[in-house]
Each structure stands twice: as structure tokens, then as C-alpha cells.
């Protein structure tokens, strides 16, 4: 059984895992790229090792180096977090081959579920409904995909076989535009995952994106931790998640939960995983994909169920049984997570790089912030643009919304633009408050400007503040010049003055 864990990640998720390790009394090993020398996860860990230059391909994706560091440091286990190497079966296998524990599912489970085409086939065999698409596990060429497209039906989605997070994904409305979109999807998939294979899937309109969290141990116990509502997305990137889903009822939850557990059992799953589904307006659900890792949005499930998912992952990796059974899982209250990204919502969500010169994180009752940034943190173009996750809990969904509004108002980031105004507008949106939205809502119907328009503004106050700040700076600059007018340097002058006063 291991007593030291290497965290093969950076940013907020590295800090999240480090916290779990610290609570469990485990030693920790951080790894970092040259760009992350000052990062929070480096300072938080018991040991820290340099991986290499900033680009992920030379640092956080260097599985060989990471295993080498684990062996050298005496870490008995590796937690991959999400992204980077988290869903790479070859890495999980290499970790196992090196005699280390991979805190996650087995390489074979990752291979079975990580490849979306194989995952669909596995699920269909287990009798789970899937979204219509190009079935089978073989890799198809552009010509073959173009031939199959009319059978799938338009509109459809091109998706990366190795993908996730909307990368390498394109929406196609007709056959004419498909060749160009195939090309760009493959290019993006290649850049993001080093694999340019894609498949087609029918686009279900009016769908909600709902996922079920599962946890499994090495003793065959698979338990689901109920659902997360993730329909609020932009370009297939989740922006805001909540638990429970506003459309959920006991029957649907039972049915989806059973399917999720069945999926886990089908591949002898171990550790934390997520079954993503689309739910249409008639509450029919379709399997979309399985994420064989810890999810970004896992905290909302932790807040409504009281289960510490990361600690459970570590416990089961150490061979323990899950500390709870299915009947112990109850949903209490409601939780919302806003992903705070360095993106300008007023300018087409353009990523914003630069230094966070000052940051004030919200706190107080029911508020949790998972982050890896601090005042002085530099947002580089090498990694993703997420600054933090702001998560709140309330006794009811309405209480959670009011609390999120309060927390967003407390949140101050100086130096880079963030999408906080987007989340504030969302919390004021009647459609969001009513729980009436689908996966297209953010892109097609939601208007931040419309909501912001009616709000009270304070341009006069901003004018007074800006003028006073500028006035003070000019005055101070003038002082410096005047002092410089002395015939000797300031340092000489200072020492003379000190001598005089001795």
C-alpha cells in the first residue's frame, strides 16, 4: 500500500488532489514545467520535480519522465487528474508495468471506454440506448464518412475518437460543407490528442446534457452518486454545471443510475468515472460517452452527496472498499459550479492572457473555490484558460442561485478579463432560474447584453475613481521629478540626511 502520491497534473486539480492527500496523511510529489515553477501546486506538495519546458508535449504529457520521477521519489501511486494523461490507456498500463498504482480505472477499462466508438459498441451490447451514429470500431476515411452521413441524418456532429471537451468537434448541417469541416476537425483533433480519427453522431435537438457520476472499488462494488446537469455549454465546452438537474425525477434518476452502474460493471470499472447522456424532451436518454477520470465538475456532486470523490479514489486505489453503499447516497440541497475562465465574454469569449495583478476570491457560508491561481499569477497560452471553479451549495436551487450571485459579486480579478459577467447575467436569466434550457441555450438564445441592459450602471462613479487615480499618479510623478532636481543622487542625499540625523 502506497504512502506517497505523485500528482501528474497542474493548476486547480493538482491542488484539489494535494488537499485530499494531505487530509489522508499521505506524502505528495508535484511535477511542474518551467512555466509553473511558482505555481501553487509546487509550493503545496512535500516534494517537487521539474519536468521540462512549458509546452505540455515537453512536460505534462511526458509519461515516461513522470514514471521515472515517481520511481525516483518513491511515490507508490500516480493520480493523473483530468486532461493530459488521464485517459491514456498506454500511460495507465506503463504505470502499472512500473509496479506503481494508477489512481483511476485499469488500462483495459480506459481503452474500452476511452475510445468512443468502442464505448458505444460496449454499451449497445449491454442494452443501453446510444445516439445514432457511425457504429463499429474501425477508423473511417473522409470518403467513407461522407457516404455514411446521409444515413446518420443531418444535422450531425463530427467528433474526435480520442476527444473530449469539444475539441475536434464540428456541427454539420448539410453534405456540402462536410468536407471542409472534416478537415478542420481532424486538424484540431490531431493538435489536441495526437490522433486525427473522427466519427459521426446524430445531433439531437432540444437535448439536455446530463451525466451520472460513478465510483467503484476493486471488490466489484459500483455505486452511482446521482446526476449533474451540464447543458449550459458554449462550443461544447461546459461553462456551468448544477446538481441535481432541474428536470430530474425519481424514476429517471433510478433508470439512469442503473444504466451507469451497468456500464461500470460491463468493463470491470474501478475508481471514479462519469457516464454522459443526452436526455430529450420526452425524458428518453441516450448514452453519449464515458469519461474514465475525475471530472472538472466533480465538486457539485461532493456538495450534494457529502462524498469526497478524490479521497474515495485514493482509498479504493489502496485496496479499500467504498465507504458507502448505494442506499446511503441521498441528494441534499442544490449545488452550482461556475467555471471562471480568462475569457472576455464581451468579445466573443476571446482568451485573455496576462498577469493577474490582484485577485479576491469569494468566501463565506456555502461557498467553495477550487483554484491554483494567486495574485501575480501569469496566464500563459500554454495551458487552458480556467482560473478557478466557483461552487456554491444551497438548501434549495433558488437559495443556491442567490448565493452564487452573492459570491460572483465578491469575486474580483484584476489584470485579465474573465467570464464573471457572463455568469452574473446567467444567474439573472429567467430561463436559467426556471430551469428551462437545453444544450443550445447559451449559443442560440441567451443574450448577455439583453440582461445587462436593464441593470443600474455607475459610469459617473467610475469617472470619479479613474480621474482621482490618474490625478494622484500625475502628482506623485511630479514629486519624483522635483526630488531628482537635487544636484546629487537620491541615494547620496539619503545617506547624508541619515548622517545629519544621527
Amino acid at each position: 500500500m502506497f504512502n506517497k502520491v505523485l500528482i501528474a497534473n497542474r493548476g486547480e486539480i493538482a491542488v484539489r488532489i494535494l488537499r485530499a492527500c494531505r487530509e489522508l496523511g499521505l506524502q505528495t510529489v508535484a511535477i511542474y514545467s518551467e512555466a509553473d515553477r511558482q505555481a501553487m501546486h509546487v509550493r503545496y506538495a512535500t516534494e517537487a520535480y521539474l519536468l521540462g519546458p512549458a509546452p505540455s508535449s515537453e512536460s505534462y504529457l511526458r509519461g515516461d519522465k513522470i514514471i521515472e520521477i515517481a520511481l525516483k521519489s518513491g511515490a507508490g501511486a500516480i493520480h493523473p487528474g483530468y486532461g493530459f494523461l488521464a485517459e491514456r490507456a498506454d500511460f495507465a498500463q506503463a504505470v502499472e508495468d512500473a509496479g506503481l498504482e494508477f489512481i483511476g480505472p485499469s488500462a483495459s477499462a480506459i481503452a474500452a471506454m476511452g475510445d468512443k466508438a468502442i464505448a458505444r459498441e460496449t454499451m449497445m451490447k449491454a442494452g443501453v440506448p446510444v445516439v445514432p451514429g457511425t457504429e463499429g470500431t474501425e477508423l473511417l476515411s473522409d470518403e467513407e464518412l461522407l457516404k455514411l452521413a446521409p444515413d446518420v441524418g443531418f444535422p450531425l456532429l463530427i467528433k474526435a475518437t480520442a476527444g473530449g471537451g469539444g475539441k475536434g468537434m464540428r456541427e454539420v448541417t448539410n453534405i456540402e460543407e462536410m468536407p471542409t469541416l472534416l478537415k478542420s476537425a481532424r486538424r484540431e483533433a490531431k493538435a489536441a490528442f495526437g490522433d486525427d480519427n473522427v466519427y459521426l453522431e446524430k445531433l439531437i435537438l432540444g437535448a439536455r446534457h446530463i451525466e451520472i457520476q460513478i465510483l467503484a472499488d476493486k471488490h466489484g462494488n459500483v455505486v452511482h452518486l446521482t446526476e449533474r446537469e451540464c447543458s449550459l455549454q458554449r462550443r461544447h465546452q461546459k461553462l456551468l454545471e448544477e446538481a441535481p438537474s432541474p428536470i430530474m425525477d425519481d424514476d429517471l434518476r433510478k433508470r439512469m443510475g442503473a444504466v451507469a452502474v451497468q456500464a461500470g460493471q460491463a468493463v470491470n470499472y474501478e475508481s471514479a468515472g462519469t457516464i454522459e447522456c443526452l436526455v430529450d424532451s420526452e425524458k428518453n436518454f441516450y448514452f453519449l460517452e464515458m469519461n474514465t477520470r475525475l471530472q472538472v465538475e466533480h465538486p457539485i456532486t461532493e456538495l450534494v452527496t457529502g462524498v469526497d470523490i478524490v479521497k474515495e479514489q485514493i482509498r479504493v486505489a489502496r485496496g479499500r472498499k467504498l465507504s458507502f453503499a448505494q442506499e446511503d447516497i441521498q441528494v441534499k440541497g442544490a449545488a452550482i459550479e461556475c467555471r471562471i475562465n480568462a475569457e472576455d465574454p464581451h468579445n466573443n469569449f476571446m482568451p485573455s492572457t496576462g498577469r493577474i495583478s490582484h485577485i479576491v476570491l469569494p468566501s463565506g457560508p456555502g461557498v467553495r473555490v477550487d483554484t491554483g491561481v494567486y495574485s501575480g499569477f501569469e496566464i500563459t497560452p500554454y495551458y487552458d484558460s480556467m482560473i478557478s471553479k466557483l461552487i456554491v451549495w444551497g438548501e434549495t436551487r433558488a437559495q443556491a442561485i442567490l448565493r452564487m450571485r452573492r459570491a460572483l459579486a465578491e469575486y474580483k480579478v484584476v489584470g485579465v478579463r474573465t467570464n464573471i459577467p457572463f455568469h452574473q447575467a446567467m444567474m439573472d436569466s429567467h430561463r436559467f432560474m426556471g430551469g428551462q434550457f437545453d444544450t443550445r441555450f447559451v449559443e442560440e438564445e441567451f443574450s448577455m447584453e439583453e440582461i445587462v441592459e436593464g441593470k443600474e450602471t455607475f459610469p459617473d462613479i467610475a469617472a470619479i475613481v479613474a480621474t482621482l487615480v490618474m490625478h494622484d499618479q500625475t502628482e506623485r510623478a511630479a514629486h519624483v521629478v522635483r526630488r531628482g532636481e537635487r544636484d546629487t543622487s537620491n541615494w547620496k542625499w539619503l545617506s547624508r540626511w541619515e548622517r545629519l540625523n544621527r
Partner: protein
Amino acid sequence: MKYITTIDEKEFLVEIIDDRHVSIDGKVVEVDFESIQEQPVFSLIVDEKSYEAYVYHGEEGLEVLVKGRLYHSVVEDERERRLRAASGGAVAQSGTLHLKAPMPGLIVAVSVEVGQEVKKGDVLLILESMKMQNELKSPRDGVISRIEVGAGDSVEQRQKMLSIE
């Protein structure tokens, strides 16, 4: 001291009378203004109403965050204003516009050619940064006069990429 302060295209005439008094568009208000030690944070009390402001330097002027909203400001004194007026104003809708990289990244594709006419909102090029492909669109109508980057090039922040006449 008199200033012309522009907040998101709206001009205010702000005069600093003394430490406690400011006039804004001719209306004198009593202000209590404090800078919070070593932070870009300011507390302003006007007529017993309390405001907290976060201020930082933007590309031009100051960005001011008040009650969850970011205001873009340019503060000029009368002399600066006269100088700028004499030079014909800074923001011209005609003339050459240089498209600069909003962030460092990799050019994935350039969608236009020299001599091509473009409309406001047309995609000019695709810049990959932070693992996302970002479409950079034309800020106005015009003709592409120069292209200085090609697919596969790395660009630095604010590097000139192409010009529109």
C-alpha cells in the same frame, strides 16, 4: 485641475477642487477617497454611499471595476485634449488598420488574400491559443493590403498580422 474623462465613449468633465471635493459635469460632490494599502483597490464614499473599485492599466487608459461591471476609461487634462484634437483625433474609421495578435499563439490558417475585399465580421484568420482555435474577425469593412503571417507561424502578443485599408 480639470480633466475630461471618457467612460465607454461617454465624456465627463471632472474637476478636482480639493481633497474632499470634486465636480462632475458641473455638479459639486463631497468625496472620501481611500487607496487600500499596496493593492489596486480603492474605496470611495460619495454622499454616504460606499463604492469599492478595482483599477488597473489597460491597453490605453484605466480599467475600472465597480459593482461587478468593468468600465474602460481614458483620462485627459485640457492640454492633452487640445493636443489630440490638433492631431486630428486618434480613432479614424478610414485609413489603415493593423490587426494585431490579441494573444500569443499559432496561426492555423489565413482565410484572406491581399487585395481581397472584406466586410465587418468576416473571418480573417484563425489563431490557436490555449488549445482553442479562435477566429479573428474583421473589425470593419475594407480591403486587405498586407499579410505578414502564414499558416504555421507563431506570433507574439500584439504582433502585427495583417493590414486593412
